[in-house]
């Protein structure tokens, strides 16, 4: 059953390669690139022909961090143990065992932003995967089968860690990965919370976290240290707190960043939470946002309407949406999606790492009821002083999307604000109709104008 043919695109590196190409040359080149980017960004002034103000300067650091991450991945096999993990998985445990982590969802999003997802989806479809399954899954399976990736090369996993707190889809997807790579799959199953979490649900997740240690130790070839785990959890907590603060800065008017910026800047909190440099990065970002707030600089030049985005972004349209909406005076200042990596930070307690991580990983918005999501959106409408809500009805993400029709109706009826259901797919552009979407967005803006 296991894929036995050698996969040419998964290469074992030597320690020398790793040291030379990643540690020495790669890091230095990326640092030089970052200096160049910094200089370029520092020299940017608002352009008359642009509806947006110049991007945040800290993006140069983020680009360096993410590039370094994927560069290390190219040479990781044979040097570090590699785990592929879902975006909502308790990665802190693996970090404490020095695993190098790859987040297939983040990789798929990268493919989406670079507009490579469609061809990778087609690779998967050519192999028999239906167009009706999640486009993240299809993108990554396509990359796995073809070896094509804008990241250069992904390392082959020694371990898979799948947590069902975002959907059941990841389990089906990771079973395919497990069959393909023939490596152990650790499942952290998180019961869906229709109401508040009950003791047996927390105990179940905690026990699975405790049980995964021995499997991970075996693969890692080293012993687990609770002290290291607590340190990683502490970094994770601090980074999540900072990320929440970053997002909450958009409560200011004008908002210093857009949710589209948030989608891009969430890379480190998804991929590198638990690393000290992630904390440094969000401190830097927060400083820059505060500077913008002090100077009254918004992300868009003329912020007339403030909007909430629900669900995953439409990765291949981020730039277009940002400009088009900005051109109509619409700033998408908040999103339920980016909040998911920040709102649980108060639950993280490094002194009780297993119990608190069990609680945290049970409570993402995607693992909670449709009524809870509505309440979260209503709270955000108030706290961010919003004029409307765009609910991305994401064909590829059913747990996020089912319930949106009623959520929209409640937002309109109870809060009296316009709310738009926008049909698309987070990674597959073939499920997006440009003309129809534009017309619906125009009508949505007209409704906000009528209310103003």
């Amino acid at each position, binding site marked *: *059953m296991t894929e036995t043919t050698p996969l040419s695109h998964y290469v074992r590196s030597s320690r020398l390669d790793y040291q030379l190409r990643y540690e020495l040359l790669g890091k230095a080149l990326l640092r030089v690139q970052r200096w160049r980017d910094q200089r370029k960004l520092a020299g940017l002034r608002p352009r008359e022909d642009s509806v947006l103000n110049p991007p945040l300067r800290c993006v140069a650091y983020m680009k360096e961090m993410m590039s370094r991450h994927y560069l290390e991945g190219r040479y990781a096999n044979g040097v570090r143990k590699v785990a592929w993990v879902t975006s909502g998985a308790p990665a802190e445990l693996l970090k404490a065992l020095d695993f190098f982590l790859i987040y297939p969802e983040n990789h798929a999003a990268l493919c989406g932003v670079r507009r490579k997802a469609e061809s990778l989806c087609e690779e998967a479809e050519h192999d028999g995967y239906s167009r009706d*399954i999640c486009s993240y899954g299809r993108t990554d399976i396509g990359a796995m089968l073809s070896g094509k990736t804008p990241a250069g090369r992904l390392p082959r996993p020694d371990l898979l860690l799948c947590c069902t707190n975002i959907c059941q889809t990841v389990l089906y997807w990771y*079973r*395919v990965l497990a*069959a393909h790579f023939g490596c152990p799959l650790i499942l952290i*199953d998180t*019961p869906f919370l229709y109401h508040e979490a009950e003791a047996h649900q927390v105990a179940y997740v905690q026990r699975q976290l405790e049980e995964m240690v021995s499997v991970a130790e075996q693969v890692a070839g080293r012993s687990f240290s609770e002290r290291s785990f607590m340190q990683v959890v502490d970094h994770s907590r601090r980074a999540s707190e900072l990320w929440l603060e970053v997002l909450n800065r958009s409560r200011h008017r004008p908002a210093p960043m857009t949710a589209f910026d948030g989608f891009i800047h969430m890379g480190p909190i998804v991929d590198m939470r638990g690393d000290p440099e992630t904390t440094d990065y969000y401190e830097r970002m927060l400083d820059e946002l505060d500077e913008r707030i002090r100077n009254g600089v918004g992300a868009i030049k003329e912020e007339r309407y403030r909007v909430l985005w629900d669900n995953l972004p439409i990765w291949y349209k981020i730039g277009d949406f940002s400009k088009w909406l900005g051109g109509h005076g619409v700033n998408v200042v908040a999103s339920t999606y980016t909040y998911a990596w920040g709102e649980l930070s108060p639950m993280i307690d490094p002194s009780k790492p297993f119990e608190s991580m069990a609680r945290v990983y049970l409570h993402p918005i995607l693992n909670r*009821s449709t009524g809870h999501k509505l309440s979260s959106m209503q709270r955000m409408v108030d706290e961010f002083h919003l004029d409307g809500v765009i609910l991305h009805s994401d064909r590829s993400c059913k*747990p996020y999307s*089912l319930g949106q029709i009623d959520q929209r109706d409640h937002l309109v009826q109870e809060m009296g604000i316009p709310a738009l259901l926008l049909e698309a797919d987070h990674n597959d552009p073939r499920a997006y109709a440009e003309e129809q979407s534009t017309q619906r967005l125009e009508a949505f803006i007209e409704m906000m104008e009528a209310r103003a």
Partner: protein
Amino acid sequence: MPIADRLTARKAIIERVRGLGRKVVAVLPFHYPRALLRAYRLHPIEVWGPPNVPRDKGSQHFQAYTCDIVLKATSFLLRGGMDPVDAILVPHTCDALQGMASVTADFLKPRQPVLTLYLPRGCRDSDRAFLIAELRRLAGCCAEISGHKPNEADWAEAFAAEEAADRALASLYQRRPRLALSDRDFYTAVRSREFLTAEDFGELAASLPEGDPPADGVGLMLSGIVAEPLELFDRINEMGAHVVADDLACGYRRVYPPAAESDPFARIAAQLLACPPDPTRGSPIEQRVAALRSRMRESGAQGLLIYDVKFCEPELFDIPLLRKHLAAAGLPVLHVEFEMGMTVSRQVLTRIEAFVETLQ
């Protein structure tokens, strides 16, 4: 006489079980603890659509990319189809049913309580312990609905009845080659477990005649969630094929082996966790391939027909690897998707027909 004509209508069954002091629960697909419901004096009537209900009311709450089981069951609820029942139980089978349970409880707010059951996706000790606790939680909800807390005798009676019905179902599958039943009649009998009492199902199963099976020709194994409408079996027979085995959620995937635990909750958990390999329960693909290969060989199935309700993600992910590994074992696979209705589309039938021809 066709089996369907021998079955008591659901409405009459509801009246009868009420007469026995039981309340009625509408149950969505598909793993759930029958013995627990019975011990708490509840009777399940399952809802798999139904196929004859329009999607309209469901479409007012769920997007077009939602599976028909959820769309139609929601329509059925909003059209008053579940009015006679006292509670609605939605097991956590997939993301779509999770969405349905949540929307129903949070927004549709029917008169009846909406009960849920999370089924763990593994078979580890932690999964078993969790499922036992989850069943105890469900039992608390059941007690509120029926006002009854079972004693030892109630549990013993419930296990005796439901396990006898489980054995009767397993026996039906074992006797399948010897039963003088058309495919339609066989699956009508299997699926009557969805609403009959355990005793009535046992009686029906025992009464089915043995003899020469009416259908012959190419043997197929049928996989998926639910084979609707039953007309499908007639059309398959007309093509010169017949269904010799299945891997259906409404069929063989619920042939639970007996368990011997003394604690009732542990016993139910053991049974549910020991179900045949099932993608909705997170079974590794290797297990599914091995089980399908072995059962196809035993039953003489020449090909696997995967008949999926449109947008059923748990089933869709496994298909390429199932196809690859079964084909390597000389067992061809055809995957078709259908929209649930009263007839099978011509397009679907043409594909099945072509598949049968290649097997002939």
